[in-house]
Every structure is written in C-alpha cells, then in structure tokens.
C-alpha cells in the first residue's frame, strides 16, 4: 500500500467537505472491504477520511419507520431486538453474510458500498472494465461461475455480493444521503446500478454523498420470512444464489409479498413482477414454481454459471416454502 494520509472527522459536513475538496480521498468506516482492496492495489486513495466518529450508529423507530444509522455495525443490526421484531428478514440477511468478526467491523453503509468480488476486478493484472474501463471483461469468456445471469451489458457481468442489500431491497428501504448539494433520499432499488456503459459505477451516488441512514417502512410482512443463501460451503462464503422472502399470509392466501434475489446481478434483484403474480394466490408449491419461472425470464448464462438458471428459481421456491411453512 502507499502510505496514504489519514484524518478523522466527526461531523457530516466535515466528512463531505473532506471528500469534495480532494479527489483522491475516500471515506473509511469499518474498512473491511476498502482496506482489502487497498492491499490488492485495486483502490488507491491517497487519503482516508475516518468517519467512525460520526453520530450515525443509532437504530430507532420514528413514527412508522425503522431507521438504521449508516455506521451501525452489521452484528448490531443482526442482533437488534427492534430489527428482529419488526424486520426479521433484514436480520436473517445480514447474519448470512461474512463471518462474526467481519460483521463486528462492517457498517451498514459499508456493506452497501462493498465492491464485487469478481477475480478479474480484484487482480490488477487482469482485464476488467469496472476497474479499468476499456480493458475488457475477463469473466465473460473466463471464470464466470459466480457471475450475473441478469445484465444489461456484456461489458461487465459482476454480481453485487451483499446479502444485507438483498434484504433491504425486498423491504422497500430508502437510503438517506447527505452531500455537497444537500440531503437526498433514494429508494433502495435505485441505489445500486446495472453496469450499462459505466461499469465502473456501482451505485448512483454522486461524489461527496454520504449515506447517513437506511429507513424501512413498517409492514405486515414479519411473520413469514426467510433468507436462503446457497453456497459452496455451509458458511463464510459468497452466495451462488440467495433469495429473500417476506410474506403476509392470510390463512393460506398470500395477501402481500416481497421477493428479491442475490448473486444474480450487478445489484440486488427485486422481483416486483413476481410479487404481483403471487399476490392473492394460494401459498402452494405449484404457484411458487410458476412464480419462479417468471422470475428467471430474461436470465442468461455465460457458461460456467448456467446452473444458476436452475438454481435461482429452485432457491426461490425453497425460500417461499420455508417462509410460509414457518409461523
């Protein structure tokens, strides 16, 4: 690593100012992804602005919204009573990620900001349009077993690795930002991007915009939830495919439902069309299978990840069964 500059700030304004005035600077929160990337030479800020002292750690209920500060630790969120009671899907999703130690270090904001783990992105000797636009996509004709089946370009088929984000996108969260031009709110669905012509941009933040909190609206979807993460080993591994399910069940009818997939795209994959299909239908495996077939429409494999075309719908069906089987 280069020997970068390091400063600490304790107000949002100072944090934003520090970044805006120096193009070679980045915020440091938990650092579990950033420090890793800096060691690999993938990200090379010349200055880190430590924001860990900002007052953004609280988890609280305000009216009918659950507000989680951007600096709340992943482990805190997973174990928080309010989260577990009101938005248990989120707790399950966060818990499925990484390891206990990493969850003790990583923040909510950092989890959203984490970069893909595509090996071509991570290795500075390999072609990667995300890391160095124009150099090509190493995964396209290479090792793409972990990669996207939904994409809007062959310039980049990376997946977003965050489990927490799959939960948040399912729960209609809103991202609260503060930047040089003031405060902003983005629906979680619009926070992460598809690569398009700018694979180097993971999300829709403008430079200097700091995530301050995520907000989750109250709902009746906390009785039947499941987060199913299918991976190559039982724990401490990224998803091959994951599915987040939250159902408002009335008897055996699906009154309301939220669905999202992970491990399939450059962003967490909300399944609105599938939700609409299932609303009002009976909670049966037959319906789940039809829903899953709908979910996979438009998906495409790139060789080594063709199995996801089968695994993704199967995972969704299994998650639905588990969620609605639980009382």
């Amino acid at each position, binding site marked *: *690593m*280069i*020997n970068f500059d390091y400063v600490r700030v304790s107000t949002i304004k100072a944090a934003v100012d520090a970044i805006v005035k120096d193009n070679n600077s980045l915020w440091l929160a938990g650092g579990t992804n950033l420090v890793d990337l800096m060691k690999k*030479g993938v990200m090379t800020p010349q200055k880190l602005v430590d924001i860990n002292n900002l007052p953004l750690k609280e988890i609280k209920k305000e009216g009918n919204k659950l507000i989680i500060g951007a600096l709340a630790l992943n482990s805190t969120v997973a174990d928080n009573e309010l989260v577990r009671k009101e938005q248990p899907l989120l707790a399950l999703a966060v818990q499925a990620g990484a390891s206990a130690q990493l969850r003790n270090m990583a923040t909510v904001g950092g989890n959203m900001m984490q970069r893909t*783990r595509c*090996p*071509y992105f991570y*290795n500075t*000797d*390999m072609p990667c349009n995300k890391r160095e636009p124009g150099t090509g996509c*190493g995964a396209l*004709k*290479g*090792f793409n*077993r972990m990669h996207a089946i939904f994409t809007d370009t062959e310039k980049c088929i990376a997946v977003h690795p965050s489990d927490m984000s799959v939960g948040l996108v399912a729960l209609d969260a809103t991202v609260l930002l503060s930047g040089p031009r003031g405060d902003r709110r983005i629906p979680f669905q619009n926070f992460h991007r598809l690569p398009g012509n700018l694979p180097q941009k993971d999300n829709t933040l403008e430079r200097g915009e700091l995530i301050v909190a995520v907000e989750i609206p109250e709902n009746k979807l906390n009785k039947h939830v499941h987060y*199913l993460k*299918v991976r*190559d*080993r*039982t*724990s*401490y*591994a*990224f998803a*091959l495919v994951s599915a987040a399910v939250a159902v408002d069940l009335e008897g055996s009818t699906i009154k309301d439902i939220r669905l999202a997939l992970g491990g399939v795209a450059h962003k967490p994959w909300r399944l609105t069309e599938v939700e609409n299909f299932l609303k009002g239908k009976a909670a049966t495996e037959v319906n789940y299978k039809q829903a899953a077939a709908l979910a996979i429409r438009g998906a495409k494999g790139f060789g080594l990840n063709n*199995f996801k075309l*089968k*695994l993704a719908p*199967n*995972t969704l*069906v*299994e998650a639905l*069964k588990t969620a609605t089987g639980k009382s």
Partner: protein
Amino acid sequence: MATHQYLGGQPDEALDRVDGRQKVTGAAKYSVDDILPGLTYAVLVESTIAKGHIKKIDTKKAQSAPGVLAIIYHGNAPAIPGYETGGNPAKPPTGGEPFRVFQNTQIYFAGQPIAIVIADTYERAIYAATLVETEYNKDDQRTDIEGNKDKAVVPKGPRYADYIRGEADAYKNSVIKIEAEYIIPVEVHNPMELHATTAFWDGEDKVTVFDKTQGVKSTQRSIMDAFKLKEQNVQVNTDFVGGGFGSGLRTWPHVIAAVLAAKKINKPVKLVLTRPQMFTMVGYRPYSWQKISLGATRDGVLTGLTHEAISETSTYEEFTDRTVDISKVMYACPNVNTRYKIVALDKSTPTWMRGPGEATGAYALECAIDELSYAVNLDPLELRIRNHADVDPVRNLPWSSKYLKECYQKGAEAIGWNKRNPKPNSMQEGEWQLGYGMGAGNFNANRGRATVKATLLADGSLVLQSAVSDSGPGTATTMTSIASNVFGLSPGKITFELGDSSLPPGPTQGGSTTTSTLGSAVHDVCVALQQKMAELVTIQGSLLQGAKPENLHFEKGYITLKTDASKKVAYADVVKQTGSSQLEVTKDSQAGDERNKYSIYSFAVHFVQVQVHRLTGVVRIKKVVTVADAGKIINEKTAASQLMGGVVSGIGMALMEDAVMDHRFGRYVNNNLADYHVPVSADVPDIKALFIDKPDPFINPIGSKGLGEIANVGFAAAVANAVYHATGKRIRTLPITPDKLLR
C-alpha cells in the same frame, strides 16, 4: 530448539499435548515469530506470465523507494555456489531439475519469483515491490491438462512402468463390466501458517535459518548444498510448524531466495509468502484424470481391474505420485493392470498432499467398487469383504497385520449401515434426501531411520532429543508417551527436544512415518539406556550388585528386583553412582528386513451419512464414522485428532476444494482463502474416530503403523457414494458442489 515437557496430570494413555500450554498462550514460536535485532523484510516479485522470458526488469524506482536495502534479480544475483556446479541443491524428490531462483530470464510458471525486494519495514518492502517494472517476451502457455492429454508420457524409472498381474484388461471379457472416468481438480495444501523463512549469516560461511519445514535435516542439507557450507555451519530452527500436509516436504526456491538475500545485505531477513503465493510456490495436489475398469462375476467377485491415470507436472521437474498403486493391493483380483502417465505443463511443480497418490487413486477405485455393487445388486460392504485380499497380491507375502474386516464391521455397526434402505434415492427427510456411503483405503506403513539421544539427569528426569519437526500430529507428545511406557518414568519427568538441526538426525515428517520411525528410535534408545543402567547397578559394589539384568524392573522412576520389590534404586541414584551429572546414550534406529517377509500397510474405512437438498443440490455431511487399523495407538487424544483432521481434509476434497486456473493466462483465479474453499466449522459434524488398536507384531518395536494419511484415503469416495445412494446421481468429478447435482 523447542523444549516440551508434559505438565498435565492425566493417565499415560491419553496425554494432553506437551506443547499445549505454549499453543494456547501464544508462546509457541513459528518461523517468523522471533523479532531479531536489525530484522529486515523481504517480498517476492512474481512473474505475471506463465511462459516466456524476462525482457527487462527495471528496479530503479523501487530501489529509490524509502527504506529499500537491496533488490535481487537475475541481473545482479550473487552466485549460488551449488547452482554453478550443476548440482540440484534443493534436491527434488522426483526427476528433473529444480527451478533455480534468480538465475536466468526464463519463465516457467505464472507466479514464479523473479525478484526479491528487501526493506527496513514490511510496509516499505511491499510498496517498493509494486514499483519493480518488468517487460516480458511472452510465449503461449499450456496449462490445461484436458487439452493436452495426448502429450502425456510414462514417467522415467521402473516404479512407473505399466504394471500387469495376470491378464491385462481382463475386464473386457467379464460378464459384468464397469468403466468409469473420475476427475479430481488441483487442490492446494493451504496450511494456516504461511510458508516463511527468517535467515541471517555470521560471516561468509555460517548461516542460521528459522524455517517452516517438515524436514529439519533435509532443509539443512538443501542449504548446505546450495551454498556449499559445512553441516555444523548451517543451523535450522523449526520449533513449531503451522501445518504442512506435504507442502513442507522439500526446500522450495523461496527459502534459497531468503538465505541469498540475507547474505547480500548481511542482515537478518524475514520472508513470508502471501496466501496467493501459497498456490504456486510450495506445491499442490496435481489435477488427475482416472479411469477404472472393473470386471466381475455376477456374484461380485472381481475378475479384472484396470486403473489408468494421467496427471500433471511442471516442464522442469517430473513429479510422480502413487496414484494407481492402491488398485494393485486393495483387493484380491487375479488380473490387475495399471497405466500411469504425466503431462508437462507450464505450471510450478506439484508435491504430495495429504494422502497423496493413494487418496487420489482411492477416490476413483472406491467409487468404481460402489458402482459395481449396484451392478451386481450386492451390498457395497459385502462386495468389499467378498474381494478381501488375505495376502498382498502383488508380492504374495502375508500382511504384517491387517484388521480391515474388523474396521468394516466396527464402522458399519457404529453408523447403522444395516438400518439403511439399500435402494438409491429412497430415504428422505423433508426436502433432504438421505444417503449412506463407504470408502476404504490403505497406505504403506513405513519405518525410516532416526537417531535419538537420551540423557538421564541427576534428578532422575529424562531428556530426549532429535532433529524432527511437528506440524500438528503431536510428535513430542507421542514420543513422551512412548518413553514413559518403555522407560518406566512418569510423563511429567520427560522432556522432548526437537526442531533443531544440530540435534541427532530425525526423519522428515511425512508419509505417516514419524511415529513408526521416531517412536522406534525412542523405544530403542530407552531400552539402550536401561541396559546401561542395568550394567551400572548390578556390578560389584553397586546398589543391586549381583542381580541379573533380566531380573530388573523399571517403573515410575525406580529400578526394582522382580523377585523382591522392596529392593529399589531411584534413577537419580543411578546417575549419582556414575559420578557425573548425567547419563547419556545415543541410538540410531532403522528398519530390519521385516519388509522382505511381510507387506506392511495401514487400513481404514470411512462411513458417511449425507443429506442432499432436493432443490438446491446442497450436500451436508451429517454423520461420519472412521475406523483405522494403524497398529498400536500410542496416544488416544492426538491419534483421534489426526483421524478427525484427515476426515476434514476429505470433506474438503469431496465437497469444495478446487484451485481454478484461467488457462488463457495460466493463472489461478481463486488463489485466496475466500474463493478457494476449505471446510469451516459449520461443514463438520461430530466425527466418530475409532481404532482397532492392535499392535503390528513386525513393523517396529512399538507396533505402530501410520495414521496421518490413512485418515483421508477413501473418504472422498465415501461421500460421493453416499450422494449416489441419496439421489441416484453419480458425480465423478470433484468437488461435489450444488451445481453438479442440479443437472
């Protein structure tokens, strides 16, 4: 050197590890845990191409970076005397010539060390290394064995010639035929400790090295040969080794690089490999393609067995493995033939990885046997018993001991083998399909040569010394146990010293031979010491004068007369009698000719219960029973841990390990511990590790065969067979990941 003394209060059969306290307090020092005064830090620069030549290395920028003390590469490398005479300094255990670090511009594999940067801090060394600029003349590399099988050749030497017993390819004429191909991808040892070396010179001709090695003396030899130094001037210290599994069986080029760097700057140099470098610089289990062809009668009696294998090696060394050997001895079949070939690829040289060829070959053989059992509608256990080899079918010699049938029986009972529904795809628990599988294995039980020095001190305590390492099996603990029993002294009064090349020569820790080899030497030296003590106490004027040596009994630190227990002499008093402060004996110990009369093997059987998810293809291991015939079990605690450890490595082999190379570049894409999966705690259920624990009467004086490797030979097959039983799907390419079950 590491000094180990037993501190616990347990009975002799199950000693707590003598080095336990050091390990749980962080006091155990591994190869880079000593902070020496003036220590400097080295980092290797690696080739980014797999084949070709270095056109230019520009070190100017790197040289000017803060704290840089030296940069060595082919353009300025000091001579390594051993290289110049054309010898093979870091002698490869197999054919060819080892890679000579920094000696020319040729690139043999991606990740090849092409320069070493030394700086005054670790951070500065890493940073400076990024400033080294290299240009290459790149050639097209060949790293994919599947596309190059036509270039496979039979390795040199009589060991690897095609073997035929009876009629070759007899399966072709059999009533029942099984022909199946099996693939195991590249696996990497990945011990938790990164390979590392700290080296410093004293003048021109003396060097001390703290090295991570499984062979203290062999590393000493390699350094001696490379730098043309006298044995007494090369000191290798290896107090603790953080796992080896085979990666430390030879002295790799990075060790020579570290020693060279230390010589160049005349300061202590510490070199630690990065985790990605652990994939290319310390060997790996090579990719293997295997074909097993079985012929049998309708009753499941084998009439023909053909085992073919193709594996890989580097272009500069010929690495070979005993992949097909297991088929020669595992079953009584009159017609067996094997064909083994290797392909030279633009990769670094593989090396033996826990279980080596036997684990590789057993996967194929034991899966094929399982396939046969369904073809003849016979219980897989019964099929194996039906084809049990009562004598060694290759040499026509009796086994020194073989309790494989007992292993079958004990294991089957423990897992409830007979309670299963033998039909595949017949047992469910909700969305999980249940299956049971078994796999057996054998492993040559060897005894090598070792020297141990025993010193009885004036206080009656015993010190044993040998230049051996311990990478986890519990060498010092096992030796303490043996000495305690043989010498008649409580373990708390015994100290075992190891890890120091200046001690009497010990064996390299590998091939499951340490207990057999070193344990025998400990036994022999204790007996020799007792003999010396017997002479001393029975001569004229001494404490038990006139007594016959055969009438003496040694126990708990006292010599007594068998015929009169009241007459006793403390060991301490024997020492006092000599008039000096200690009594010493050094004994060299090695095998006799028992191998000419008997075939000596360890055996194990693994039984596994798995669950496979119907929709997602996830495989979970629910129960494991492993039974080993490893001769006499010296220390139950460490032996059970060894067996468990082998099982865990087998879980990795069966379900998740796969070092993936992008052949367009000849480079690994998952060379790190997040993407190369080894088992984590959640992957591992309770493991029932059982032993027959009957001494082998011929292998050595302690009756112990080997355990470390039999622990995983055949395990991967047990899992694959269980998956078949659960689902009706036969997966012949490891690892068995969810996607393979979705097809």
